[in-house]
């Protein structure tokens, strides 16, 4: 047996070290087994975490999505989230679709035929109504094409109207909320980059993880939303700890270079994202945490949830700033970020600091996931949708700088929300990404970044 295994083992041994282990320590083959085990354990752990609740009512219905009826619901150019559409068809088929964060809803149907599509006007946000004279329910025929689009024009409820000034204030408020929650997640990106040099493409999934925890804990088990925030923070931090100890720390010890490390994070992001959709299903989960009462501040209408989210984000960000600037550990973190070699020489345990950074980054991202879930509902790809916005925020502020990430995030939040006053709402993320590209052109080190970082 032992002899039989030997050649295979040697082969791995050779492959394992060759490409980017130039600076790695002693060449020990057990590392290989440890890493494979670590990867498997990570996947198994995720399965265990997610498997519990999914066997029951949340399993995806076994409809092949070859034929579908769908559409986009927008009101005043803004996508409408959480509107429900009922579809009935031949052979007693019924199906419901809920519009996602981008306003899109889809109902998979069994095949061609005549269907009736009805928008549940009770699920529209307050202040909007179906435009007068629109047929509802509507008859549609699925013939030669596999999908058909049904549009429901939504107009503003005529009971109140708003001018440009109040719309601007409204957008500024939304932008601040969005910017603060992006900042929560972006500080993690920038701290990880600062201390390890990794551009973590799997950071969006940390946010999704927090949102999924929220959906489970607050949405399904009915736990109080503030307690849920604490749980998401702790669960996210634990996830960060597990991730770093099983995946990133072993790779660092091998001396893996930054580019392959970045590609590993891309693979990990794909893996995570599809594990999540595997267990929670591709439909958007409506999250009702009970903070939906409107709050009117002058001409700005917000919900309680938005105000709570902004307050908690702001308090957390102040706490992070205090940690980084006033505590020993925070100062050590900044020292590692500035110059890891020098920090190590002055007696700082660099590996321990990096572990703390991962736990903190993942915890804050988990908390951002709670806020994002309250802001846009919960879907499996919500984190990856804002990943590039987070990169834009950190780049704009100056990558590696925690305060820069905060500043960049607020600007990106404003850009995303204010851009909808001028351009169609479905291009608002594109506007933020264009800013990223322009920043690269004129000031690649960002607002608060230092020149040396851009190499």
């Amino acid at each position, binding site marked *: 047996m032992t002899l039989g295994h030997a050649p295979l083992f040697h082969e791995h041994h050779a492959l394992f070290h060759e490409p980017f282990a130039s600076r790695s320590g002693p060449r020990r083959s057990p590392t290989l087994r440890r890493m494979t085990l670590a990867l498997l354990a990570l996947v198994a752990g995720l399965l265990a975490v997610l498997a519990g609740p999914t066997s029951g009512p949340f399993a995806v219905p076994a*409809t092949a*999505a070859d034929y579908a009826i769908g559409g986009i619901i927008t009101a005043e150019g803004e996508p409408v989230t959480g509107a429900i559409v009922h579809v009935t068809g031949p052979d007693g088929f019924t199906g419901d679709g809920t519009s996602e964060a981008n306003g899109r809803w889809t109902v998979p149907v069994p095949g061609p035929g005549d269907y009736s599509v009805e928008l549940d006007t009770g699920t529209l946000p307050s202040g909007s109504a179906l435009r007068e004279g629109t047929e509802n329910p509507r008859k549609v025929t699925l013939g030669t094409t596999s999908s058909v689009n049904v549009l429901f024009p939504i107009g503003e409820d005529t009971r109140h109207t708003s001018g440009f000034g109040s719309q601007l204030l409204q957008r500024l408020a939304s932008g601040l909320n969005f910017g603060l929650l992006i900042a929560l997640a972006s500080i993690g990106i920038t701290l990880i980059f600062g201390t390890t040099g990794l551009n973590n493409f799997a950071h969006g999934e940390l946010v999704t993880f927090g949102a999924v925890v929220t959906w489970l804990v607050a949405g399904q088990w009915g736990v109080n939303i503030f307690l849920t925030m604490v749980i998401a923070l702790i669960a996210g931090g634990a996830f960060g700890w597990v991730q770093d100890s099983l995946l990133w720390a072993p790779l660092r010890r091998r001396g893996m270079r930054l580019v392959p490390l970045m590609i*590993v994070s891309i*693979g990990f992001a794909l893996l995570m994202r599809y594990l999540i959709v595997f267990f929670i299903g591709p439909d958007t989960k409506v999250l009702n945490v009970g903070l939906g009462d409107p709050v009117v501040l002058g001409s700005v209408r917000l919900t309680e949830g938005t105000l709570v989210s902004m307050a908690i984000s702001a308090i957390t960000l102040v706490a992070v700033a205090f940690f980084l600037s006033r505590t020993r550990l925070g100062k050590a973190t900044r020292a590692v970020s500035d110059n890891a070699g020098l920090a190590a020489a002055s007696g700082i345990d660099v590996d321990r600091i990096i572990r703390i950074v991962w736990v903190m980054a993942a915890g804050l991202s988990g908390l951002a996931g709670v806020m994002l879930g309250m802001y846009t509902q919960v879907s499996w790809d919500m984190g990856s949708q804002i990943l590039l916005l987070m990169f834009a925020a950190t780049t704009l502020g100056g990558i590696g700088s925690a305060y820069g990430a905060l500043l960049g995030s607020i600007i990106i939040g404003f850009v995303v929300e204010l851009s909808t006053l001028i351009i169609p709402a*479905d291009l608002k993320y594109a506007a933020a*990404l264009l800013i*990223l590209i322009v920043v690269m052109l004129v000031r690649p080190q960002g607002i608060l970044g230092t020149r040396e970082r851009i*190499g």
Partner: protein
Amino acid sequence: MDWISIIYQALGEIISPTTAAYALATIGLGIHFGYTGLLNFGQAAFLLIGAYGYAIATLTFGAPLWAAVLTALLAAVVFALLLGVPTLRLRADYLAIVTIAAAEVMRFVVTTTGLTDITGAANGLSGYKYTFEATNPIPPGTYGFGPWRMNEYDWWVRIVGWGLVALASVVVWLLMRSPWGRVVRGIREDEDAVRSLGKRVFAYKMQALVLGGVMGAVAGIIFILPRAVQPANYGTQLTFFVWTIMLLGGAATIFGPILGSILFWVVLSLTQGLLYGAIEAGWLPFLTTTQAGQIRFIMVGLALMLLVIFRPQGILGNKKELTFSA
């Protein structure tokens, strides 16, 4: 379980136009990353530009085949120039973020409802195949045997697609043996050393970006000939698939992209077929077909990680040739 049809389906992928399109896109990415060391994470944008350039020229302007192809290629050149000017002087991982962002911007633009008349928004485009169909010299009928039995259009798409893959491979082989190839490989290894020899590194990088991008655009055209243009196809996962294929076959190799693409699609088709078959037979009662479809992405993510960690030079690559330089 219908073993024959599952195996036929998988074997059919060997010569499918999708496999050819991915091989071509990977050859282009190989020029970017494998030979020149550019971290292009926006290859999906070049496929998008090829597809939309070709389809819009045909549908909106009624362009003949040659003009539609030329439009797609010119659009790819312009996009490569626009992308390269701000980014090629930056550090490698910054290029990655900017290219992926630019690709997403392109996808948002073709999906926006404001451009429905031109791009079809979320529904995409169809009905642009007639100019290509008209060039088909094969008389109508069904040809071939076993898993490779199909009508004259499907054969014509495959012949043209794989012909272009062969052509691109020869071009890359010739280029990389030329002085130009030696310079770009030098840039990959040590940019400053090449600069000290008086070479204009920026110009060479730009040429590589344009060349690989044009190949991506051609891949985009091949990709839409057997199907419709769907904007959702051009998300970041397309780029990640191409990267996985490149790292699977071997980044700086001639046959790597072809082998990688064939293996990738045959394995995906096989696992998909086996999972669907097992679900229909009732062997996997805890799994739905939707979930089975998601398993392929989980596999790709895992494969990408394991490849980079354990065998970054891929199947055909030379360990000394491929070292990540940053």
